[in-house]
């Protein structure tokens, strides 16, 4: 086993002795240049794809089961097949609006290997017959925007993007678009609204999903940056090589960022499906344990929106079909670790504040409920909350997510797991996400909240034997 090397030019990324599908170029300081890209097999996947019929390429991606890496985990090839046959034009929108708390991979892929992403976009457009591609990068990512703009300019000049790519009949424009700071725009229909120049509020769905009715009312495929970055490797090596890595239901690799109280926080490209949370948190080639060898208190397994896990769930693998029933989700590949010194109510407050702040205001339960949750929790954290406040949190939460809210099992507390997903009264996941961390925290660490409550002790009143004589 090689020891993990941190590349100073890919801040946070830790390589290892594992298959590298999307991070193969990260070891080079100039990985973002077209020279390095071409010298390391760049655009070979595109060439290979163009040498086959588009439907063939689509089939190849479908049989590889490339799971969407944005959070929902929907297979990309299947998604492409959902567009209506006889409606034109169709669009590709690349979701580079990464802002889920803890998530940190798309930015690296855009900063460190923008050409790989461009190649992935081209393959997707070719396979699914998409006429134009819009690459939506989060507004705050200045370096990613600069790197992708440079890469696009280079690719246009070299004939990889634009009219008659590589001299073929395949022509597509990739337009760089950038946002201006709104978490909710990471939701695909909000992304489309934002791309149309509107306020980034999600659209009601069902009935219409973007694949049928998206950008300008046309069929639109929205794919995550990491999903598309997988395609060049897949084209070169084939779907059999891809599915040989990982498990049948979760093939390939995925990028996971582990942050918080671990010895070596970092972004890792791990084997999908087989790697467990214990490997990641304690493995020598990954995080190497909890800081100061403290005890693990809890961890967020899949980005800020995910219900929390404790040490009981460490042996679960990165496999949606196992993490879901255990009460949480893999989401966007972000683990945030809390050690025994963590103030749980305060930690939950940072996340609830985030979602309350990022609510777009379209659905009432999220707009009002999220803010209520934050205010009530703030009272508790500051030490002025009461027992009624704790009850109120759960009641407000039940208005955003009626029914049993998913949570992990816990042996010590005698809790059985409530499986994912939850019911919700909002269009998108921002509302439930404000409640998720709070619900987990209260369920798993109720005593920490109770310790902070103001106790109202009733004073016994003695009966007055004679009426007061004030009227006399």
């Amino acid at each position, binding site marked *: 086993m090689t020891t993990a090397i941190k590349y100073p030019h890919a801040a946070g990324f830790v390589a290892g002795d594992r298959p590298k599908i999307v991070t193969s170029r990260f070891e080079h300081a100039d990985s973002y240049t077209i020279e390095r890209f071409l010298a390391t097999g760049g655009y070979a996947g595109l060439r290979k794809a163009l040498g086959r019929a588009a439907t063939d390429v689509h089939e190849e991606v479908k049989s590889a089961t490339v799971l969407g890496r944005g959070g929902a985990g929907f297979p990309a090839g299947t998604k492409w097949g959902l567009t209506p046959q006889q409606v034109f034009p169709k669009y590709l929108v690349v979701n580079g609006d990464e802002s889920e708390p803890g998530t940190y991979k798309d930015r690296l892929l855009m900063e460190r290997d923008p050409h790989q992403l461009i190649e992935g976009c081209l393959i997707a457009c070719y396979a699914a017959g998409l006429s134009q591609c819009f690459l939506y990068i989060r507004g705050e990512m200045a370096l990613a925007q600069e790197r992708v703009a440079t890469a696009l300019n280079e690719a246009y*000049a070299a004939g990889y993007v*634009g009219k008659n790519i590589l001299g073929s009949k395949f022509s597509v424009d990739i337009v760089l678009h950038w946002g201006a700071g709104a978490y909710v725009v990471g939701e695909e229909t909000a992304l489309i609204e934002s791309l149309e120049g509107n306020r980034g509020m999600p659209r009601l769905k069902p009935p219409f999903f973007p694949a049928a009715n998206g950008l300008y009312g046309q069929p639109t495929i929205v794919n995550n940056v990491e999903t598309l970055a997988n395609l060049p490797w897949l084209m070169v090596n084939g779907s059999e090589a891809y599915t040989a890595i990982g498990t049948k239901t979760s093939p390939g690799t995925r990028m996971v960022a*582990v942050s918080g109280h671990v010895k070596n926080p970092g972004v890792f490209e791990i084997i999908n499906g087989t790697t467990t949370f214990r490997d990641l948190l304690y493995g020598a080639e990954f995080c190497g344990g909890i800081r100061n060898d403290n005890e693990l208190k809890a961890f967020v397994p899949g980005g800020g929106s995910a219900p929390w896990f404790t040490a009981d769930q460490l042996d679960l693998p990165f496999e949606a079909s196992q993490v879901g029933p255990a009460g949480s989700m893999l989401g966007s590949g972000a683990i945030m670790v809390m050690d025994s010194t963590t103030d749980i109510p305060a930690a939950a407050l*940072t*996340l609830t504040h985030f979602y309350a702040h990022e609510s777009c205001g379209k659905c009432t339960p999220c707009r009002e409920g999220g803010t209520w949750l934050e205010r009530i929790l703030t009272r508790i954290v500051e030490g002025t909350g009461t027992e009624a406040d704790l009850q109120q949190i759960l009641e407000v939460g039940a208005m955003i997510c009626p029914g049993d809210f998913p949570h992990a099992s816990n042996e010590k507390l005698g809790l059985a797991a409530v499986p994912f997903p939850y019911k919700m009264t909002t269009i998108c996941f921002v509302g439930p996400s404000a409640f998720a961390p709070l619900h987990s925290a209260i369920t798993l660490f109720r005593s920490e909240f109770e310790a902070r409550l103001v106790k109202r002790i009733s004073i016994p009143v003695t009966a007055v034997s004679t009426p007061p004589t004030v009227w006399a």
Partner: protein
Amino acid sequence: MSRLNEANIKTALEIIARYPRPKSALIPLLHLAQEQNGYVTNEAMVHLGELVGVTSAEVYGTATFYEMFRFEPVGKYLVNICGTMSCALMGAGDLMHHAEQKLGVKAGGTTADGMFTLAHAECQAACTEAPTLQVNYRFRYKVTNGDFDTLIDDLKNGKLADEIPAHGVVARIRQRIPADRGVGAVAPELVTENPAWMDGKAAL
């Protein structure tokens, strides 16, 4: 005067031409306006409305949704300290407290000399490098109190002028689509058939 200048009008038209519908260019154009003036002025929003063919109210509606757009002057350097979970776990609260002491303003405030605006920010996608901050959207990782002081001093002395442009400029490199290479944007209603390469045969 705070409408877009000649050079920026040219850039704006270039950006608008890339989209099948002009309104799509609104967010990039608002950035352009902010780049020119340091914040988004009312006149600029009226001008953008004229350029993309919507009312200024619609421009204002879009602009106010997004956090990066400012409608009042801010400091030359906008210092955003992340306070979301991973950074909070690694001491972002203390860093913010120190920053407030150092700059002499509360989060959200601007220093009297107009150099710095300090702000609390949400997750910046650099969670393993916590606590993080961005100065005009340029990252600083694992920031200690000492690092923060050095950063502020360097910014004051103009040492970082090459790396960090004044507030308003996000990316300094723009996409340019050469006229002879671009396919061009077509309004969706004008497209009536499958793209040429969807004929069941290989493109190459």
